[in-house]
């Protein structure tokens, strides 16, 4: 496998392999926490911290963690860091803790974090895993902030809780509801697809290459992709 430069690992998660808009991971918090900009930004930063810490920890232990015990080990590590972040947010930023509510705990089962642990951190060095965590976390935060800005400004005529008076008569409340969130999400995915000219690396990252059963899978297509990647 070709060795990537540190900068490309860091930048990978921001557009080329953006976890929300390209890899379509972490959909639940992306729709649920993007009704307000501050909630979405807080969720993004919390996920970034957990991604960064869990990627480093898993990369450090990648040669020790037994192959058939890796998922329970990853879950324990991720859940531990999520609880640390939760306690810290509860102590230092109680208003953000109230805003995020149950979604802060749900970072444990956020598929971006488990996905990067399985796809990247257990195969790469600590430095690259840390940079991947930061890049993916920034990509997640930027996507959530962008989505929430559109939804809050056009749906609630405010930005981070600050009212925008001239938008008051033109707000589209539909955007603050779940269907509006899905619509904004779909439009942003289409925009990113156009920007990347449809060359999003979904096949090489999330098909046979990363599949733990790729070697034993009998599908000819999978074997071909595995060889190509």
């Amino acid at each position, binding site marked *: 496998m070709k060795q990537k430069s540190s900068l490309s690992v860091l930048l990978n998660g921001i557009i080329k392999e953006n976890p929300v808009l390209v890899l379509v991971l972490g959909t639940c918090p992306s729709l*649920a926490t993007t009704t307000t900009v501050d909630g979405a930004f807080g969720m993004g930063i919390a996920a970034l911290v957990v991604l960064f810490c869990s990627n480093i920890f898993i990369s450090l*232990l990648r040669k*020790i*963690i*037994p192959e*058939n*015990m890796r998922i*329970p*080990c990853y879950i*324990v*590590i991720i*859940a*531990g860091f999520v*609880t*640390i972040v939760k*306690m*810290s947010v*509860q*102590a*230092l930023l*109680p208003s953000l803790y*109230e805003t995020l*509510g*149950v979604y802060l705990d749900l970072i444990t089962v956020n598929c971006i974090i488990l996905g990067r642990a399985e796809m990247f951190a257990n195969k790469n060095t600590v430095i690259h895993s840390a940079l991947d965590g930061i890049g993916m976390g920034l990509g997640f935060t930027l996507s959530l902030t962008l989505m929430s800005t559109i939804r809050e400004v056009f749906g609630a005529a405010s930005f981070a809780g600050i009212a925008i008076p001239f938008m008051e008569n033109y707000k589209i409340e539909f955007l603050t509801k779940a269907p509006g969130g899905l619509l904004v999400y779909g439009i942003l995915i289409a925009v990113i697809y156009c920007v990347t000219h449809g060359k999003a690396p979904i096949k090489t990252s999330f098909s046979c290459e990363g599949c733990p059963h790729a070697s034993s899978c009998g599908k000819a297509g999978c074997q071909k992709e595995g060889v190509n990647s």
Partner: protein
Amino acid sequence: MKKYIKNLFVFVCICTVITLLLATTNYFTVPIIEQNQIASTNKSLKEVMPKGENFEKIDTSNLTLPSSISEAYKETDGKGYVVKMVTSGYGNNMIIMCGVDTEGIVTGAVCLSSNETLSKEKTYGKNFISKNAQNIDEVDTIAGATKTTKAYKNAVKDALKAVKELSGGER
């Protein structure tokens, strides 16, 4: 067999390290969280009973109150009572605080913390202001958040029952 013991050992070691990290974080954050909770309780007491000045906690262990009641406070100048309740809506542990004056009229209700997904409980309490045991059913539940708002309404009903008991118990 040796492989299983080795796997188990690695897993136990990882759990131990994570537990130590959690214990350290807990050691530093618990005092701050407790201070925040006290400040939040004092702020909420004023919010649900704006005319109240000082509040003292009442020992409710000898009284028969609805099961949702967790704490009760008395306004020291006799302006009314504030009751804290723990109930379950769509999720568990929805904590609500409700103020009731001496005439049995709700002076305010707020949700202190919850695990609900739609956040309707954060603004629903204002609908109960000036309601009493006779007209509380005029407050409608919200479509799409029926379980949350129904639980909230039942909690306020419990608060009215509890205040009746508390004021009766003192006579």
